[in-house]
């Protein structure tokens, strides 16, 4: 479904970030996906693997934090996690609540390695000294 497009967007984001950091290699990318975003975890990791195979990103790992939707209660102004679509406030019981998150698709972090940290280059340095 659309997980392939999302995997592609993640890789584009990584490539853009690497463009700002010459000499770095991406090791792991972290994203946050809301449970209401309609993204299937298996389809996403499958799509990510398929797109990175035999490319410069072949060893890039994807870590996904799936977050439940959150709502805010209008009367008592407290936030709560929305479980099982039960929209009443667990603090005061009111049904007058509004969902404030749950369909996000966001980047969290990128783990980088300096290219000189890679074992291959280390070996070369030792050999030449």
């Amino acid at each position, binding site marked *: 479904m659309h997980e392939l*497009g999302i995997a592609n967007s993640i890789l584009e984001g990584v490539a853009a970030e690497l463009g700002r950091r010459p000499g770095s290699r991406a090791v792991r990318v972290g994203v946050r996906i809301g449970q209401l975003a*309609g993204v299937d975890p298996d389809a996403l990791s499958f799509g990510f693997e398929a797109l990175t195979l035999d490319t410069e990103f072949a060893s890039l790992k994807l870590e996904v934090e799936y977050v439940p939707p959150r709502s805010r209660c209008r009367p008592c102004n407290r936030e709560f996690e929305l479980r099982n*679509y039960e929209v009443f406030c667990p603090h005061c019981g009111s049904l007058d609540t509004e969902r404030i998150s749950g369909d996000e*698709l966001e*980047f969290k972090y990128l783990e*980088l390695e300096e290219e000189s940290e890679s074992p291959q280059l280390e070996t070369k340095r030792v050999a030449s000294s």
Partner: protein
Amino acid sequence: MNRVPMEGKVLNENARVAAELRERFQEHRVFVVNLISSPGSGKTTLLEKTLETLPKDTRVAVLTGDLQTENDADRLKRYGFPVKQIVTGGTCHLDARMIEKHIADWKLSELDLLIVENVGNLVCPSSYDLGEAAKIVLLSVTEGEDKPLKYPSIFFKSELMVLTKTDLLPYVPFNTEAAIANARRVHPGMEVVKVSCMAGDGLREWMTWLEQRRQKHLSTLSQPVG
């Protein structure tokens, strides 16, 4: 190794196109609704009755989606309004790109109402924003009254539930109160309209809801931004 924070959205291509469509619809004050239901719940029939009842000078157009055939568009074209069929081939839902492509040669400034009839599917259409102002879910009385609990996403996201085929109520075990209660568990305050296209019941309520919702939508557009 160095972990750097990354900001920004993972661009969901459909969300991007849908946002553009929404802006265009708002700019031209076109009220767009997205009709979603299981196959066979009565979306096309409800639309036939709608187009039959609307005054002939109503500035309405319809996009109807199916995997194959132009059957639904053929049925709907008989009422004299612009109708286009979206043939998805195999895709189980309409997406924003399909809408964008099929409205390309329509002048949005000449429309007040655009009705999108999605592919019969209670699952996938829920995830694909089409730039609409409201999602509407149909549930027929030949289905189970626990459908809202089984398919919470679409009932959560829809503003109106249309209970269809109510003329069959004497012949099926469907519990209307339970169906409405289930829908309201998932979506408190969910509005409900009960219709029978065959008997003509509830059509006035449906048309009234549509027009009132359109007016409400237009009034939000008139408010200053920020």
